[in-house]
């Protein structure tokens, strides 16, 4: 695992203390059902956190609550020291906390180009629009080729690239990725990891939900396992963790370590 320590600008940690993102006892859900039963997690400045755990246990719900799509019934969310609990999504976006949602269903009737333009909707983002677009086209040459194609007609993977692209166009100060590798071919997955890593090292902390733990561990060093809407386990940065341990935790939810580990 690449150690995070070096190359992280301490300046990236603003007045609010050394915490980029801070979640305290978050409770939320849909309608009558409560999904999150008090989740707490801290994101040290300059560190990326990864969330994993079985399907349907609240990872996405957590992210949606953080970025204001869902009301928090109780608990706090702070971003760079600011309290953003139940703030409007556009206020949160304006602060630079960008969320790339799960599933690649962005704007089906827009072309890639239009969608990217829309990604840079906030004044903040507009400033860096050109640069960001360049960068995205570098990471995903395919998007550049197809920039005039309607998103609904893209292939699954291409759509995933597009939605990550839209997120990056928001010129994030911190980026939330929900299952970013969904449907991506192995190679582009690798390149994505590398690219995101570089951007992140230049001072853009990440929150990543991912089923592919390998990928997760490439990007992040502080892991939380979400189970039944609670933090079931976590690994702090710098803490020595070995692969098998993680797997064990991971499969703790049933299923045994298959013989087909690559």
């Amino acid at each position, binding site marked *: 695992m690449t150690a995070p320590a070096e190359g992280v600008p301490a300046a990236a940690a603003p007045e609010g203390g050394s915490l980029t993102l801070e979640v305290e006892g978050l409770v939320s859900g849909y309608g009558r059902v409560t999904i999150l039963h008090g989740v707490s997690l801290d994101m040290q400045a300059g560190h990326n956190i990864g969330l994993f755990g079985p399907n349907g246990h609240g990872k996405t719900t957590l992210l949606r609550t953080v970025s204001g799509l869902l009301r928090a019934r109780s608990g706090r969310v702070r971003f760079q020291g600011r309290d953003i609990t139940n703030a409007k999504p556009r206020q949160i*976006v304006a602060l630079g906390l960008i969320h790339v*949602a799960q599933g690649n*269903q962005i704007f*089906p009737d*827009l072309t890639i180009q239009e969608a990217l*333009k*829309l990604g840079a*909707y906030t004044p903040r983002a507009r400033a860096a629009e050109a640069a960001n677009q360049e960068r995205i086209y570098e990471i995903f040459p395919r998007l550049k080729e197809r920039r005039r194609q309607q998103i609904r007609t893209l292939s699954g993977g291409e759509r995933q690239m597009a*939605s990550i692209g839209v997120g990056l166009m*928001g010129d994030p100060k911190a980026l939330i990725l929900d299952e970013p590798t969904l449907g991506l071919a192995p190679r582009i997955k690798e390149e994505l990891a590398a690219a995101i890593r570089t951007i992140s090292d230049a001072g853009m902390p990440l929150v990543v939900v991912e089923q592919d733990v390998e990928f997760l561990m490439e990007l992040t060093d502080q892991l939380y396992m979400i189970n039944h809407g609670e933090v079931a386990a976590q690994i702090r940065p710098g803490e020595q963790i070995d692969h098998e341990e993680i797997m064990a935790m991971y499969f703790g939810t049933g299923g045994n370590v298959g013989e087909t580990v690559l």
Partner: protein
Amino acid sequence: MNAAFEIVISGLFSGSLYAMMAVGLALIWTTIGVFNFGQGVFATLCAYITWQLVDAAGFGLPLFVSIILALAVMAVIGWLFQLALVRPFIGQPNIVLTVVITTLAAFTILENVTLLTWGPRPKQLPPLIPGNADVLGFGIAAHQLTIIVITPLILAAVWLFLNRTRTGLALRAVSQNEDASLLAGLNVPMMYALAFALSAVLAGLAGVFFGGLKFMSPTMGTEPLVKALVVVIFGGVANLTGPILAAYLIAFFEAVATYFIGFYWTPALLFLVLIVTLMVRPEGLLTGRSRRLT
């Protein structure tokens, strides 16, 4: 020559009216993905409000002041409309049908409110510009000439706004995926409001055109609405270009057909042509992706 000229004028004139009604409808459809059956009564209402402001029996203001004021009122009404009749149903499975019925109901309400407020007797607005103009030696009412001239300008403006500005882009995006729009930092409620206000203003303007053209009655909005529906669907609902083109196309078709085969069978012929066209181009005249309806 004479006939040719008349046909061209007729095409341009009716085309302008159709387009004016249709574009508001198309705007709502391409942005929010619903049909606003209130569009017709918007026209009626705006005509009557303008009449109230301009007529001696009313406040007797100058025509253009009255029009501006009336349009402002329409914007507000449009906004209220979406707040009460559309917004609550966003994201529901059969929103299209639900909104059809809520806006139809609103249509009934406003139509009868007009009836109660201004009574059933016919009224008329002063023409935008009185008198007859002379084009290439042919006479044409200045009012109609004005309509022929300014409509394309207005349509062009709307088109540019929707296709060339970031706000226009947001307007088109917002209903495609509300969550994604929120995560891009859009002010979603504002977008819906904007779309409706804009289309109400456009319909209102059409109403003012009608009011200066024929007698106003509380039910004057129905026919233009139906026509607009035909135009919008035929033009293809992917964007605004289709409906606008369709409006003029249909108008010219009618003018030519009326002149050569007579008024009587023209509608039937038109509908036959529409059906056949759609059999060949199932996605409308200008092929583009139709929205999912359910």
